[in-house]
């Protein structure tokens, strides 16, 4: 982020905290993709994800005075979205009851259809426990390092690394069995 962009964002945060609706609208537009995607990948339901993302931004509006910088804003949104997703999943038992073994295996090879592989990966990740699932989403959607994930999810760094290691190992096993000929 260059200095001019950073200064513009700082200005938007300040104006939004003072009740400037236009500045808040710009902040929503800028971050809605991140918040919505996190919720959508986690909950696997677009309408629920939209509802949750709206609540996150409502909460942001109420807490704008506590936001100190653009970096803090992004961190705050990731943290609140992650925790709300995990709470929502636990509260409503949204997590699919299907086990990893029940996940349908693709009939075609990955090389023939990348979309199919992506969907397969999402479905396998969907079978992970809540925190492990969010670790994978933050790692691969937001491209965060394990230390940043640990801060967002308030968990020890070693736990994050352990979640990642186990999740990747499980994904490799599952996909190797399914797509034996593809090296992952």
């Amino acid at each position: 982020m260059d200095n001019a962009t950073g200064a513009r964002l700082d200005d938007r945060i300040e104006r939004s905290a003072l009740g400037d609706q236009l500045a808040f609208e710009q902040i929503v537009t800028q971050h809605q993709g991140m918040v919505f995607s996190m919720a959508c990948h986690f909950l696997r339901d677009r309408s629920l994800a939209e509802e949750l993302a709206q609540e996150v931004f409502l909460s942001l509006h109420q807490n704008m005075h506590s936001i100190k910088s653009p970096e803090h804003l992004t961190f705050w949104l990731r943290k609140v979205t992650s925790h709300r997703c995990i709470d929502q999943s636990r509260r409503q038992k949204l997590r699919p009851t299907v086990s990893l073994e029940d996940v349908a295996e693709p009939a075609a090879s990955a090389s023939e259809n990348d979309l199919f592989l992506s969907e397969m990966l999402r479905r396998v990740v969907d079978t992970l426990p809540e925190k492990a699932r969010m670790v994978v989403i933050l790692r691969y959607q937001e491209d965060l390092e394990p230390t940043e994930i640990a801060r967002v999810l308030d968990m020890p760094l070693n736990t994050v690394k352990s979640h990642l290691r186990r999740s990747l190992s499980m994904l490799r096993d599952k996909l190797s069995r399914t797509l034996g000929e593809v090296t992952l």
Partner: protein
Amino acid sequence: MSRLDDELRNAFKRQQPPADFTARVLERVARQPEPRPSLWQRLAALIEPPKMRWVAIGVTAALLIAIGAAEYSRLANKVVDDTGKLSQAAPPDEKKPAVKPAEIDAVITHPNAVVVPKKHTQSLKRHQLAAARVEKAPEVKSEAEAAKDKLMLALSIASSALNDAQKAVHDDGPKP
């Protein structure tokens, strides 16, 4: 970086919400009642400028007035009233007359002393005590005057500070 990493990045790339997402968020924001500040937020607001100035000035003025009043009260207790008697509230060491009654007794009962009838010794004692009190009165009065002057000065400073603060706050406030 393995192919699995690439595939995961591809599978979990960002998605965009519906086009009217921002509008719906803003609509919900507009419908929300104004959040009521918590007790801590209201207390914190007190130390924000320009309120902080008001609080600091108020505390300073109150301290000045309290100190001035205490000083005035302490010295006023020393003042001799119209009957020539010292106030009851005066500290014990300041109530002592210039000549102690015991000393008068010692002089009167001294073997070489002129014999004075008893009724006259009582009168003499009273006279000596009254003289000692009157002798001290101007000094105590001058101290009281000085304390009064100090109190008036403190009140004047506090008043001036309050006027300055009020002016500053008006200057900072929104222009009509």
